[in-house]
């Protein structure tokens, strides 16, 4: 070691020793001679000030009080940010929308499968299977939202939920058992496609539909009981569960919902087809999804045409149960919502007609029926306007004075049910005529009695329209009870027209000559947006009408029996309600988009690692036996 290195080492050692020595001396001096405040010294001892003792006593007293606290049932609990009512509203609505879809798709999948079975046309069978593909995820989402809703009800509205349970507890077990059955049927139906004989498979589909409908009937009893309670005493004590089930609005809701579900399911399936059409790469795909969209829309319209009748029956029963409920619905706070409803339904009718007219463009050559469109449109638009005419008109003060009151001398005739009923019946006839023209596009009947058949059909249409309008006008000259009953012959004449004209048409066009080829997939793209528009409008409409049905009860959980005493015991404004419904619809379509995406994975190629060329073994366990893989 050189001398400078030694010196440096020695200096470092001395420096370290010196530092340690200074540190030790400093510690000694501070410890020994530092001034200590008495308080600081006392801090070492336990704090026995009266305040600390007081806190400790309070704590003990609270503990004892907590232990001795009796159980008190909560009436309501709060949900953060949006509040309990909106939270329940959104979850219930989402559950209902998925449930409607899950109930509807099997109905028309079964019908389409049956058509395929009878005609031997495999396309129908594949189409039914494709529709069913949308079901499995939707079923899980329905069940999840159902469970979510139940938990939310128990958590946020415990007293009310307990009351419903006390009335309907006998229905819960069958409900759950039916759910198991539904799951069994659904998955066997879906995964068993092509694995059983067609008849067995059709029976599975039938079972699925029967079980699904029964589930709906039970759930409908719970919700209709809230509007028109039955089977309980004036104080709410249960007298008969069966009477509570078959309450006043139960059957009208059952019928209305069954039909509406079909229309809704058809429209969602149509939207799925539109989504696939718009993202299709080949003409073949476009042709397939155009056809699928057409079938979806056909199902939607088929359900949609009788829907106003069912809705009218429901409204009539609500009115019959209670004038207060009836007036709240049609003449009071909700009357303007029915104008929104009329606008939406009018748009649905227009959209459905529009899609059919666009569809005529698929057929080769000049279409002789195009010239009738303007007259059909005139009918649809006129009826749409009548339906959308409000009875309680929004007007400025000067307009009210000019009108001579809050009703207009002319518009008042269009604002009441006589006019609305007539308008909707004519709308249905017009839409049906559009469908009939579409059906005939590119075909010429070959039967000898074609001319007479056409005359007969036209006569039936004209007679029905004249009869419907006559009864509509006659309704202004009779009292209300008679007027309400006039809707029955109106509806009957429209139904008669649709049935009789269809029968004539089927026979007349049985061996029709095709004058132009139908080019599936050759339809303007706007038609696909119309399909999506129809689906969104249906969903929005269901949400808004759900708000009316539920909001009718106003500050009652169970109308006239159990009062809502929560902070939300008031009817939300239409503006607020439409916002909640719109957000719910957006959430629903985001979720249904997820369902569509999942369903479309079926057609996607399996994943392969990059660089693996065609013909080589994919890196997927189980796809190739180990020995084979080794050879490859």
């Amino acid at each position: 070691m050189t001398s400078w290195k030694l010196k440096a080492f020695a200096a470092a050692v001395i420096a370290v020793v010196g530092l340690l020595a200074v540190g030790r001396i400093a510690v000694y001096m501070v410890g020994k001679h530092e001034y200590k405040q008495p308080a600081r010294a006392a801090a070492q001892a336990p704090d026995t000030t009266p305040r600390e003792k007081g806190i400790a006593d309070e704590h003990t007293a609270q503990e004892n009080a907590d232990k001795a606290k009796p159980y008190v049932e909560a009436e309501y609990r709060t949900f953060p940010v949006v509040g309990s009512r909106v939270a329940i509203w959104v979850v219930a609505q989402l559950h209902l929308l998925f449930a409607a879809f899950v109930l509807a798709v099997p109905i028309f999948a079964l019908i389409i499968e049956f058509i395929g079975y009878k005609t031997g046309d495999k396309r129908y069978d594949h189409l039914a299977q494709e529709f069913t593909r949308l079901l499995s995820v939707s079923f899980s989402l329905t069940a999840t939202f159902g469970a979510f809703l139940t938990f939310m009800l128990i958590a946020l509205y415990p007293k009310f939920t307990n009351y419903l349970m006390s009335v309907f507890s006998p229905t819960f077990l069958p409900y759950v058992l039916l759910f198991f059955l539904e799951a069994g049927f659904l998955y066997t139906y879906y995964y068993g496609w092509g694995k059983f004989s067609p008849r067995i498979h059709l029976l599975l589909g039938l079972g699925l539909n029967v079980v699904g409908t029964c589930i709906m009937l039970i759930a409908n009893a719970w919700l209709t009981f809230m509007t028109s309670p039955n089977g309980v005493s004036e104080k709410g004590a249960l007298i008969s569960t069966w009477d509570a089930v078959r309450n006043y609005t139960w059957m009208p809701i059952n019928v209305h919902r069954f039909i509406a579900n079909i229309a809704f399911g058809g429209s969602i399936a149509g939207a799925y087809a539109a989504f696939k059409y718009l993202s299709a790469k080949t003409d073949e795909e476009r042709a397939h999804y155009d056809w699928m969209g057409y079938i979806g829309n056909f199902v939607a319209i088929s359900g949609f045409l009788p829907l106003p009748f069912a809705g009218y029956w429901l409204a009539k029963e609500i009115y019959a149960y209670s004038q207060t409920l009836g007036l709240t619905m049609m003449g009071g706070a909700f009357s303007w919502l029915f104008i929104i409803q009329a606008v939406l339904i009018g748009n649905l009718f227009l959209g459905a007609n529009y899609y059919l007219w666009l569809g005529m463009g698929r057929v080769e050559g000049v279409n002789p029926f195009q010239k009738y469109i303007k007259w059909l449109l005139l009918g649809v638009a006129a009826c749409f306007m009548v339906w959308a005419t409000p009875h309680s008109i929004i007007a400025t003060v000067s307009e009210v004075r000019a009108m001579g009151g809050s009703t207009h001398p002319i518009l008042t005739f269009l604002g009441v049910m006589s006019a609305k009923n007539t308008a909707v019946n004519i709308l249905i006839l017009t839409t049906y005529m559009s469908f009939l023209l579409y059906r005939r596009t590119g075909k010429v009947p070959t039967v000898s009695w074609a001319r007479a058949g056409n005359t007969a059909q036209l006569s039936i249409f004209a007679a029905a329209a004249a009869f419907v309008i006559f009864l509509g006008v006659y309704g202004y000259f009779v009292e209300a009870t008679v007027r309400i009953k006039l809707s029955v012959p109106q509806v009957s004449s429209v139904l008669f027209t649709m049935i009789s004209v269809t029968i004539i048409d089927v026979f007349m066009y049985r061996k029709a000559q095709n004058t132009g080829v139908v080019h599936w997939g050759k339809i303007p793209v706007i038609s696909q947006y119309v399909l999506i528009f129809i689906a969104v409008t249906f969903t929005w409409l269901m949400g808004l009408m759900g708000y009316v049905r539920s909001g009718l009860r106003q500050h009652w959980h169970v109308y006239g029996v159990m009062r809502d005493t929560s902070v939300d015991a008031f009817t939300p404004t239409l503006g607020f309600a439409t916002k909640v419904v719109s957000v719910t619809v957006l959430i629903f379509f985001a979720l249904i988009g997820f369902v569509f995406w999942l369903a479309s994975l079926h057609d996607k190629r399996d994943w392969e690692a990059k660089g693996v060329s065609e013909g080589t073994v994919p890196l997927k366990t189980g796809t190739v036996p180990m020995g084979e893989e080794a050879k490859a």
Partner: protein
Amino acid sequence: MKLMVVLPLLAAILALRFMKANLFTWIATIWVAFFIAVRFGFSVPIPSSVVGIYVSVASIALFTYVTSDRGRLKAFVAPLVRLMTEKRYTMLLALVVLLVPTLVAGNVYRTMSAAVEGPFFSRTVHPAPPAEITVHDKKFDMITLQNPFRPLEKDNPEQFKVHLQNGRKVYYQNCVFCHGDSMAANGMFVHALNPIPTNFTDKGTIAMLQESFLFWRISKGGPGLPEEGGPWDTAMPAWEHFLTEDEIWDVVLFVYDFTGQRPRARDESEKPK
């Protein structure tokens, strides 16, 4: 209808027929004619809220018509394309470019410079009654409440006439000043009221209702109107402070009898279980 407005519109449409106008001209004329007819064609003007609904429906319908066939859409767009591309239409195009913003600006000016007036009024013709009311310390269930004197119409017509006469007396002593001699909301106080009273001769008012509804509205008046769905400003007093229960029922009988209307009745099948 104002024939001076409607007839020229019909003449214009007829003229187009003979001129063999193109589709664009047809659609534009129909749209404008429809707007003018609805907005100015009625002797009693249609409120702008309803005009808005009607014109929107007409616009959607015309859009549907134009776009539902490729050939039709092409025919509709062709004049517009010509206007924008052909040199001979430069002046016309410039005029359109100036005219459209001018019309929009004019409409904005018209809207903003409107005379000061009360806000839009959304009076609901038939507010919903409560499930139960108390009149003269007596509770009435609105679901089952019926006019006790209505059955006399069949059972004892003479007695019924007595009630009608009493109703007439009550009406002309109390109600005539606002509701008018003919019950068409044209009483002498009408000009001071906002909104003006209900027109009972209108088919859309009392004929839609059960008598219990009128009993509720007469006895409770403006102060007894429900809060939901307001505003509910009405000058009608609560007549329960001035009339007996029987007098209210009598005047209900008279109002229906005088206007020749029948109350909404419950039939047997409508009664709640």
